[in-house]
Each structure stands twice: as structure tokens, then as C-alpha cells.
């Protein structure tokens, strides 16, 4: 793990910059005050705000922020010691999901993506999200609704509100997100005829359905998604949605399987037996002389046509024997290597198979995604011909 001795205190200091998670920088160059994701490895990814006077330290050396300034995003930066390096990446909502400080359970890319696609989010839409939680989903929504859309985010926990407010500001999203502290189940959203979509990640989403219905734009279709880990919550929500005249109620689960690609060496049985023979011949030489002699006598006949080294050794003098066996060992070593070499060597010789491997343990469930549609209010519809 990287020790962020200097950067931890000043990791993300607000800066008067327009740098935002919601859009790329036009010049794609790291400048003083910019946000940069430092990618050291898959497990070690850190977001910093570049400050010309700061240094980022980790066990592979230190990196002065000043050295990052002027470099293009995506550059590989070596440490001062030359032992380590990291990549300067542009912050995206997907990267943020991997590195954000967890204040709650968060949504991951599988659910985030599916919900956004199902709700048909696109630039210019307005949407409600409740609760804000750790702000994982908020970042993705803001990026997708930008630049003209708006996200109304609600959270009843004061500390989470404070932390998220600061994050949205630091990440250049505050003009797109209105964050309010509010218990929506008790007090509602206090929005009328305002949004295109609603996302509820609440312990009791059914309590917020009535208020959500009022928040939808009246004259158009509205889409709602609720996110609940338990099926019992879903049942109650379905009943509430149905009572409030939501239609087309559907439930999904979505998971991502991360496949690990590996190159496995693969031997034919002949090659494996060859290897075995080499081992065997080595083992025979390691036997005490008495045993070996008797063993060899017993097997000599059987091996007559096979050219096995021990048969010769029996008659050679000690010194010679050693030299010879050394030489043999060299040979066998070479063979061993060719049979159990690195994947690259195997690849070169074509004795490999490329496989995918699923991790032994993987996510089996996140939450149930419940979707429903709110038809436009019938009143506002133009004439439906009745006699």
C-alpha cells in the first residue's frame, strides 16, 4: 500500500478549477490544481489533487507533483529511485467507483450500467437519487446527464451529506447535482412535475413511492428503479407501485463475471513420459551402489534396446562417472526447462492452451433491480375519442 504521507492531508483540496469528472479536459494535460488518478496497480489506485508543492510517497519512491505538471494524462511516470512507476490517469466515474471511500454499501458497474441503460438516461434529463450513500452512482449519473441535465440527490445522514457535498464540489459536479439532507420516506422529495427518472436505494422504498410519483414530469412517461437486497422489500415495493398506478413492473438481477485469462502449458502424454524417464534415471543414480547394481541387473535386460545412461555408468571409473553425470545433468536440466519453462517459452513452442478462469469466490448477489413505468397523467392527454 502506498503511504500518502504528504498527500493524505491535502489529498483533495478544493481548487478554483473547472476540472470535472463529467467531461475530459480539452488539452488532456495535467496542470496545477487538477485531479489525477495515480494507478500503481489494480489494487492500488489513488485520487490526488495536483499541488505544485506536494510530493506523493509510496514504497517505490516519491513523485513530486511538480513533475506531473505538463504531462499528458496516461503518461507513465517513473519514481525518483527508478524502481517504481505509476500511471497518471484521468478520473472517470468508473475509476472513482473503485477508489472511493466507502461510507455505505455502494453500487458497482454492473448495476450502475444496467439501471442507466434501462432508465434511458442521456444528456439533458433530470433525475432523483435517494440515498446518496457514498456517491458512487451519483458520479455516473452526473456524467451521463451532463451538461444540461440535473440530479437531485437525497440523503438523511448528515455526515454523508457533508462528505458527498465536498466530493461533488471537488469533482466539479456541484452545478449539476442538488444534494439535500432529507428523510424522503417521512418528508417526501418536495419536488413536483420535475424529473424523468427516479432511483430509490432505501431500506423502505415503498414509503417513498407516493412522493416519487408527484416528482415525475406530468405529461410524459416516467421510469422508476428501486434497488433492494431482499425479496421481501421487493414484494412491498411492488404492491406500492401497483397501488400508485405504475405499470410494466419488471425485476432483474445483473452480475459481471471477471474472467482471468491464463496461458497454460499443455504436454502430450509422450512428453510427460519422457520427463518421467529423465526423473527416473536421476533417481537410479541417487540409489546406494549395492541397491543400484542389483536394480540395474534386474532391469538391464528389459532395457537392452533402450539406450539408458546407467548401463554405461556401471563400468566407468568414479571420476569419469562424476564428470559424465554432470554432463547428463546439464542435459536433463535443459530438457526439464523446456518441459516446465515459462509460459512464454511454451507459447513459442506451441505447447500451450489459453484458458479463462473464474475466481474461486465471486459476487453472487448485489440487489434486486425493480423497474416500473409511470404513464403520463391521463388528464393532460389530448382527446381520447369517446362517443
Amino acid at each position, binding site marked *: 500500500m502506498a503511504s500518502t504521507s504528504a498527500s493524505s492531508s491535502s489529498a483533495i483540496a478544493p481548487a478554483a478549477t473547472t476540472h470535472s469528472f*463529467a*467531461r*475530459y479536459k480539452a488539452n*488532456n494535460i495535467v496542470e496545477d490544481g487538477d485531479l489525477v488518478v495515480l494507478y500503481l496497480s489494480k489494487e492500488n489506485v489513488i485520487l490526488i489533487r495536483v499541488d505544485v508543492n506536494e510530493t506523493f510517497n509510496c514504497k517505490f519512491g*516519491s*513523485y*513530486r507533483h511538480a*513533475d506531473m505538471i505538463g504531462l*499528458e494524462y*496516461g*503518461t*507513465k511516470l517513473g*519514481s*525518483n*529511485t*527508478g524502481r517504481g512507476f505509476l*500511471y497518471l490517469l*484521468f478520473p472517470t466515474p*468508473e475509476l472513482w467507483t473503485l477508489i472511493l471511500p466507502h461510507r455505505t454499501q455502494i453500487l458497482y*458497474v454492473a448495476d450502475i*450500467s*444496467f439501471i442507466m*441503460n434501462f432508465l*434511458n438516461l442521456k*444528456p439533458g434529463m433530470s433525475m432523483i437519487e435517494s440515498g446518496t450513500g457514498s456517491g458512487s452512482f451519483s458520479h*455516473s449519473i452526473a*456524467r*451521463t446527464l451532463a451538461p444540461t441535465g440535473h440530479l437531485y440527490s437525497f440523503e438523511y445522514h448528515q455526515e454523508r451529506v457533508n462528505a458527498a457535498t465536498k466530493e461533488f464540489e471537488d469533482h466539479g459536479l456541484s452545478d449539476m447535482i442538488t444534494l439535500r439532507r432529507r428523510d424522503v420516506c417521512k418528508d417526501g422529495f418536495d419536488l413536483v412535475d420535475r424529473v424523468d427518472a427516479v432511483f430509490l436505494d432505501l431500506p423502505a422504498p415503498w414509503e417513498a413511492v407516493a412522493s416519487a410519483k408527484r416528482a415525475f*414530469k406530468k*405529461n*410524459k*412517461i*416516467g421510469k422508476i428503479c428501486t434497488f433492494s437486497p431482499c*425479496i421481501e422489500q*421487493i*414484494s412491498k415495493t*411492488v404492491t406500492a407501485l401497483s397501488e400508485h398506478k405504475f405499470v*410494466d*413492473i*419488471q*425485476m432483474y438481477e445483473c*452480475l*459481471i*463475471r*471477471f*474472467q*482471468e*485469462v491464463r496461458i497454460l502449458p499443455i504436454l502430450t502424454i509422450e512428453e510427460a513420459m519422457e520427463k518421467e524417464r529423465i526423473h527416473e534415471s536421476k533417481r537410479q543414480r541417487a540409489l546406494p551402489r549395492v541397491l543400484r547394481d542389483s536394480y540395474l541387473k534386474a532391469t538391464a535386460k528389459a532395457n537392452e534396446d533402450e539406450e539408458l545412461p546407467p548401463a554405461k555408468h556401471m563400468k566407468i571409473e568414479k571420476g569419469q562417472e562424476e564428470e559424465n553425470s554432470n554432463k547428463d545433468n546439464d542435459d536433463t536440466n535443459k530438457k526439464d526447462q523446456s518441459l516446465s519453462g515459462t509460459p512464454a517459452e511454451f507459447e513459442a513452442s506451441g505447447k500451450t492452451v489459453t*484458458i*479463462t478462469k473464474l475466481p474461486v469466490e465471486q459476487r453472487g448477489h448485489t440487489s434486486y433491480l*425493480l423497474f416500473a413505468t409511470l*404513464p*403520463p397523467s*391521463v388528464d*393532460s*392527454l*389530448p382527446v*381520447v*375519442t369517446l*362517443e
Partner: protein
Amino acid sequence: MATNPSDTINAGEHVFIKMPSDNVKCIVLKPGSTVALGKFGSFKANDIIGHAWGNSYEIYDRDNKTRVYHLDEINEIEETENNNREIVDDASSQKLTLEDIKALKNEGLKGELTGQEIVNKLKESHATFDKKTAYSQAKYLQKKGKKFHKVFTPIKPTAYSVNEYFYIKNPDKIRGMRMDTLSQLLSYSNVHSGCKLLVVDDTQGLVVSALAERMGGNGTILGMYDGDSPNYDILKYMNFNDKIQETIKVLSWLRMYRGVDEKTPDELQDVTQLTGKDLEGYHRRSKAYKIVEESRKILHAGDFDGLVIASQYQPESILEKLLPFIRGSRPVVVYHTAKEALLDTSTWMRKCPELLAPQLTESWLRKSQVLPGRTHPEMSTWGGGGCLLTATKIIDFPVQAAMTKRERLAMEKKNAEAKKLKREREELANSSNDASREGSAAPVAIASSSTIVVETTSTDATDATTGETTTTTTTTTIVQEEDSKEPSSKRTKLE
């Protein structure tokens, strides 16, 4: 009425019509026309044109009139004492004959009976309906409803609904890309308003459509295609306005670079000499040529914010060609129906110095029936939905962070030794005039990570994005040093 044109059902647009059987039909809504829905009757297009999306309509009366209908599918069921002990599964329980039912159906089509009335008749003449369990009764009514209710729902074509329609109807057309996979492709590509994307789309335009929808008319998509013209059939279903349509540009692989013998229409023909059909032809060619020129300009300006590939061709071969046009720290997303087709690409990516952390993922999606007391995963579900291989483009030009004085001296010393070794080798090799080369000392900074630089010199030395000439000179120096190490070390062994 809703104000935004995309919130209403408009004349001339593509519309999906969902029927009681859950089948979806795609139509173009012509004003004044009558849309036939087979056994579910027909309706007049004008009856839904101008209305907001989101309502269901019931066809009633003899003149195919429609009225807004509230779909009430979710019923609480009160359990009864009934069980299926005495239910015998045969045709005798329905007292109506096949002919009777056909007659009812006809009456329904003529508008003399509503779907509900037909279902009630069937129920009444069912001998054992009352003996069925409450759940079974509900299921029966739902099943019959799906056959006789004359209700339809216009569905707005969106990336999701178009994807779903084709995934069910003709998955091969879109290379088996399922909605969840597409959604992840959109996330990983970080597509948003104002970005510039390079796309190779052989899903007949599904990927381009979804990306364009997310950009909302701001930004550029450049689609590379092969053949006479790009096959982006799916675009037409999306009802995009001109602003969004204009964000989509295309370029043929064959026109990627200006051919040696390529001539502009002006060079081929003298426009002042042309008349009639020849002049028309000239203008047509001229226009086509301008489009090619414009797309080529967009491509060679580089600076793309992402590369998305969903192609039938080998992804590595495409990556090799297009990676140079992508900016640093930008996503590269490759889709393929089959995981196996991406394995070699994944290995290739891991070796590619310009790509960071390739990741192969497969999505899993399950839909459930949600009814009070009857919630369970659907009995039949989707099979494969395709695979994604994602990575981040990085700049393969390592920069060394500043060093302390001591470290710098150590590095310089090391460098001087390397130079000395090189000189010795050159003397040994007795090459005639290499002295001039040694003047350009490799900057200390880059020497340490020479191995990675080596691979790219061949492919990228010409690339404009790596820029300055100093870069190229240094890299060549390192390559030479690399070469020099081997022979000299061999020599020492021999000695």
C-alpha cells in the same frame, strides 16, 4: 401536451407495438394509416400520433376506436381451500367447442365483444374453474387474456428497447449483444456529451446508436466500415433528430489514408467543360469526396476519447491500426459474441505497451416474475450476451521523476559506463564511422526503462502524437544499446 418532441409519438417515426401476447411489432407510423395487429385487431395511426409515450390503448367498438387502458397486472390473491386434487387435465372441462370459440374470436375482432367479455365467457363455461386454486385461476385468466385482450402499448425506441427487440427477434443481426452487455460497454467507454469516439461497429449500428444517444448531439463518432457503405441499419429505428445524426461520421478502411493514385474529382475532370449528366455526376462525386476528406481529417486529427470495437474482424489487427489515434488515459473497449475470440486479443493487449490493465468480463442477467406471493425467476432466461474486453490507452513514453543529486550522480555514472561499453563494442566491431553518434548522449531519465521503449520504436516512431524529434533520437540510441549488450556479453563468455 408534452413539449419535447422526443416525449411524444410522432408521425413518420419507428414505433414498437407491444401486444398482449408480449410479442413486439415494429412499425413506421404513417399518418392516416391503419395498423393491423392480427388477432388483436387494428387501430388508426392518427389515434396515437401526438400523444405522450407510456400509455396502453384498448381497441374497442366496431370502428377500431382506441382508449387509454390501465394495465393492471399485479393482483393480490387470496388463497382458498382449493387444491388440484380433482383437476383432470383434458379437453372435456371446456364446454365451448372450438367452433364456438372461433365465433367468439370473430365477434371480438369485429368489435362486438371486448376481450374481457370473451375471457369471462370462457371462464363461465369452464367446468372446473371454481375448483382451481386461486393461483391457478389467476394464471388461467392471464393466459386467456393474452389471447383475447385487444390492448397494445406503443414503446419508444431507445438503445435499450431497440437492443431488446433485436436480441429477441434476430440476435445475429447485433452479434448477440445483450442489453446488460451494451450497458457496460457504454459505462466502460465513458461516453458522454462532447466526446470524440472512434468506433468499429459490425452490430449493424447498435453500438453507434447507443453511443450517439448518450452524446445527445454533442461530439463526434467516427465509424470505420468496410464494403460499399456502412451498414448501420439500426440507426433508422432510433428516430434521431438531425443534430444527433450529424454527430455520426463514417470512413471506409480503404480510404483511411490517401492513396498514391487517388485523385480529387477536380483533378479527374475539368468542371468548366462539363454539362448535363456529366455535371451532375461530378457534383455527386465531389460531394462524396468531400465527405471522405472530412472524415479522414477527423481521423488524422487524432485525439479520440475512446475506441469501441464490436467487429467481426480480428481485434488485434484493428487495435494496431487505430490505437495511435487515441489519447492517453482513454478507454478501449472490445466486444465479441464469443469469449474465445477475445483470448488472443487479451494476451496481445497484455504485451502491448500502450494498453493498461486489460480486463475480460462476461455479464449475467436474470429476469424474474414479480407478483404478490408468486415471485420467482423466469423459467426460461437468456443465454449468452457477449463478452467485453476493456483496457486503458496509455502513453508509452516513460518519464522519469526528478531525482536527488546523489541519485542523479549515480545514474550518470551508470550511464557513462554503458556508453563506455558501447564504445568498446564499436571499436571491436571495427565499424567505420560511428563516432558521430556518441555525441548525442541519452538523457539519464529514459535510460532506466529502455526495454519498454524498444518495442514501440518500430511501430510508433512515425506517430505524430509522440511528438518531438528528440524523443525519436533517444529511443534509437537505446535500441542500439540494447543490441550491443548481447554480443558483448557473449564475447565475455567465450573468453
